[in-house]
């Protein structure tokens, strides 16, 4: 670093933290990206240099305090730098889901009033240009990858490198510009809006959650202290940048504790990259863990019989002893020996192949994880914990402390978080991370955040005897059957989704006589099963309708019923009928949110005939559905969906609950 940098005026904003980091960890890696075959690495000092150059370049292009900068693309160092560069100028970054279609993007960019957009590549540029008539505020687009954009009109398009180049020149030649930048950084304060994150929202239009520096910096600080994160940790940033989880874990915590963030080469190579980096701190929604487990099981199907036997034997040992050993509970000596052998033969290699060998702390959050999946990873000796959080809370509401990990709770209140449960069972919290408000949406802010700073989570839950919070479901989704039995759809769905063959499940039953479900098969798992059994199929639809597939799924459903029957609170909500949907639920068709959550009410509306059929005793039902193809064209598929009755069980009264 040749240029002089203004003395750090504190640690209350990310630009100031960056200056601090560049001072104390100048030569430590700050961010990596797998590019051109190797992990290109930037130290904190280099990151500061890049960020300053870009900030100066943006200033030259006219970016002002208070402007909004949309960031569209997958996890790239340059896009992370953009956040800090914008914040240095007092502008507010607005990360946008990069796989959103143009129409969805229009709303966010319009609503945020973004003047600048920094995007990844030609695809995103094209997307923005196609809606540019609607984006009256958007003035400039900066892009990272130059490929294919050479011949575009560059009156308002700028290559990232060129902006940085301008910035560097300005900083070098114009002391005033450098001083202005330093002043702008110094002017930033904790109460400023640091970022606006749009929540996808299970219903209605997205809302822009405004988080201040205080919110994010303090949340990051508390989390780093909670898990003892230091500058020696490594993290893989692969989740959408627009998601609060990524923002806190891959950006805020990194700037606070100085750990290194690695960006994968491409989505296709994510697992390979994960394995190479071997992060020490890992954060993921349950879906990723589910997918990994599914792949593990599928890949083991092809192994030789002996190896398969050995694998499942040691998984059994792990189920028996693994979690206890991890929790430091007493375990029989023989089991300890077996577990050690298993560690050498199975768990160690498996963790290695999954890229989790070095994982010190892992979190699953975003939605409830199936207890079996959770236990599977824990039993391998991975310190996987659950976390309950929200965008509005800068992630953290509750966290499981080390040594108090249970599959069915989301843990104790995170540091400096207060929680209360209101009369209707809804969970409310208050913390330093609580958001400033929804951007340009006073009404929604008032509806969510009380005058005393309590935030409605919208989730129903309760504290158990040990002070752990248990979330049952979305408060508005928890319902009752006509006989007033509790009906928690997500609870049932998660049990179903534990089976690798089931990719998605939607349960119905509120104010109905019994519970019925719609299932989506997992094409990878069932397809591989079909291949092994020489069953040919031409399409997802055909595979999903095969009687053998139905038989297989029926077994799974019966299994879930048996399981439910052992839990008095939910035994009444056993599944009586099910069907297998003829198409995959898809975010492009609006059936899932961009974070892959089921949009229950939309589905109920869209597949109305099927739901009717589920409850009127029909054996099959014709349906026509509109689908959106990858290129945006629409089409219609027709199918005749079979409906199956399932065996249910009497309520078993078990006394093991006290264990």
């Amino acid at each position, binding site marked *: 670093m040749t240029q002089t940098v203004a003395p750090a005026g504190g640690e209350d904003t990310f630009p100031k933290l960056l200056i601090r980091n560049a001072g104390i960890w100048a030569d430590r890696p700050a961010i990596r990206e797998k590019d051109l075959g190797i992990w290109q690495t930037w130290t904190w000092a280099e990151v500061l240099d890049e960020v300053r150059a870009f900030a100066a370049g943006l200033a030259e292009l006219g970016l002002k305090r208070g402007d909004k900068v949309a960031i569209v693309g997958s996890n790239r160092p340059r896009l992370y730098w953009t956040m800090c560069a914008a914040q240095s100028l007092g502008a507010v970054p607005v990360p946008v889901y990069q796989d959103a279609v143009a129409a969805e993007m229009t709303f966010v960019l319009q609503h945020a009033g973004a003047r600048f957009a920094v995007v990844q590549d030609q695809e995103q540029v094209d997307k923005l240009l196609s809606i540019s008539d609607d984006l009256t505020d958007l003035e400039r687009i900066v892009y990272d990858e130059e490929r294919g954009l050479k011949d575009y009109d560059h009156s308002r398009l700028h290559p990232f490198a060129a902006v940085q180049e301008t910035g560097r020149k300005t900083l070098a030649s114009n002391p005033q510009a450098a001083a202005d930048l330093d002043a702008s950084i110094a002017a930033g304060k904790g109460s400023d809006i640091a970022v606006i994150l749009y929540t996808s929202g299970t219903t209605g239009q997205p809302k822009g959650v405004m988080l201040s520096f205080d919110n994010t910096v303090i949340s990051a600080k508390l989390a780093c202290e909670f898990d003892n994160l230091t500058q020696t940790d490594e993290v893989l940033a692969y989740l959408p940048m627009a998601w609060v989880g990524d923002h806190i874990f891959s950006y805020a915590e990194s700037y606070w504790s100085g750990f290194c963030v690695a960006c994968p080469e491409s989505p296709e*190579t994510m697992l*390979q990259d994960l394995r190479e980096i071997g992060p020490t701190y890992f954060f993921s929604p349950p879906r990723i863990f589910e997918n990994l487990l599914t792949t593990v099981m599928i890949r083991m199907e092809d192994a030789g019989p002996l190896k398969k036997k050995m694998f499942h034997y040691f998984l059994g040992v792990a189920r028996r002893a693994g979690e206890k050993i991890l929790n430091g509970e007493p375990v029989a000596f023989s089991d300890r020996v077996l577990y050690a052998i298993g560690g050498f033969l199975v768990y160690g290699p498996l963790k290695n192949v999954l890229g989790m060998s070095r994982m010190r702390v892992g979190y699953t959050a975003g939605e409830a994880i199936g207890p079996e999946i959770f236990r599977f990873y824990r039993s391998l000796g991975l310190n996987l914990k659950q976390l309950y959080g929200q965008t509005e809370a800068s992630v953290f509401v509750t966290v499981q402390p080390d040594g108090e990990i249970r599959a069915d709770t989301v843990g104790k209140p995170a540091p400096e978080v207060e929680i209360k449960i209101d009369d209707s069972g809804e969970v409310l919290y208050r913390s330093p991370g609580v958001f400033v408000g929804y951007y340009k949406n006073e009404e929604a802010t008032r509806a969510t955040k009380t005058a005393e700073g309590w935030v409605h989570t919208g989730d129903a839950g309760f504290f158990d005897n040990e002070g752990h919070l248990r979330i049952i479901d979305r408060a508005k989704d928890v319902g009752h059957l006509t006989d007033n039995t509790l009906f928690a759809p997500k609870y049932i769905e998660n049990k179903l989704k534990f089976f690798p063959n089931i990719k998605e499940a939607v349960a119905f039953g509120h104010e109905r006589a019994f519970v019925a479900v719609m299932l989506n098969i997992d094409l990878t798992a069932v397809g591989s099963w079909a291949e092994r059994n020489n069953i040919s199929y031409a399409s997802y639809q055909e595979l999903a309708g095969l009687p053998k597939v139905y038989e297989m799924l029926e077994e799974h459903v019966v299994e879930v019923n048996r399981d439910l029957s052992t839990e008095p609170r939910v035994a009444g909500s056993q599944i009586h009928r099910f069907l297998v949907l003829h198409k995959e639920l898809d975010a492009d068709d609006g059936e899932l949110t961009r974070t892959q959550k089921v949009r229950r009410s939309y589905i109920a509306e869209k597949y109305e005939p099927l739901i009717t059929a589920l409850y009127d005793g029909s054996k099959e039902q014709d349906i026509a559905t509109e689908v959106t193809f990858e290129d945006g064209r629409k089409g219609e598929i027709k199918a005749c969906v079979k409906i199956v009755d399932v065996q249910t069980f009497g309520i078993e009264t078990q006394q093991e609950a006290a264990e």
Partner: protein
Amino acid sequence: MSVMEAGTPAAGIRGAAATSAETAARETLLSVENITLSFGGVHAIRNVSFEIAKGEIRAIIGPNGAGKTSMLNVINGFYHPQEGLISFRGQERRRMKPYEAANQGIARTFQNVALFRGMTTLDNIMAGRTLKMHRGFFWQCLHWGPALKEEVEHRHKVEEIIDFLEIQAIRKTPVGRLPYGLQKRVELARALAMEPDLLLLDEPMAGMNLEEKEDMSRFILDVNQQLGTTIALIEHDIGVVMDLSDRVVVLDHGEKIADGMPADVQANKAVIEAYLGVEH
């Protein structure tokens, strides 16, 4: 937005009128004049002349056995025509070794994938850099100092090509294990690694499915537009030829029967008789 019209890389955007004016003004990169090639009395090519302008995509089409591949073989020095002249970048040549053609900046891919099957994707593309590397045996032995520096520099170049053709995921896979479509892409990458002025593609899309063809077309256009490489290609898929190429030469039984804009050629009666009407 004006940006849109200029920028969309869709295949059909090259207006015929604009292109004809453009190519006329362009300088000639390679010209073949009155080439005749025969094997033991059998004429493979008879008195064929045409030229390839700098920066264009030139297609050579014709029915099976029309002499298309032989033509490419003549251009890159693998066959030596009995008669005729070839000039490349204004320099006449009559007889040259294939590696001399490579040296002058002519690269090619092959009808039947001709990858080095014992090597990985990365090594195959590195192989394309052979001509650009110069460190001698001594440094090679040590694999250190200048030799290592050179190796790393070229690896960097190769990685850019890998990035360009989006084959990162198969970087270290032995090419023998790759599916056919990817092998073709690696072959293109290997040819690009030579940084050629003239790239000869012998049926780059043979045996590919629709999606792979679309990918390959996009890559060919990208190569032409982004890197400015002049391309001569042989292709059977008429649709692809019409979309991709600026100008088309049609051969039949070793003779040239047409030469011109895709649309003109498509309307040419002799061509329709010789080629377009024939089922393959």
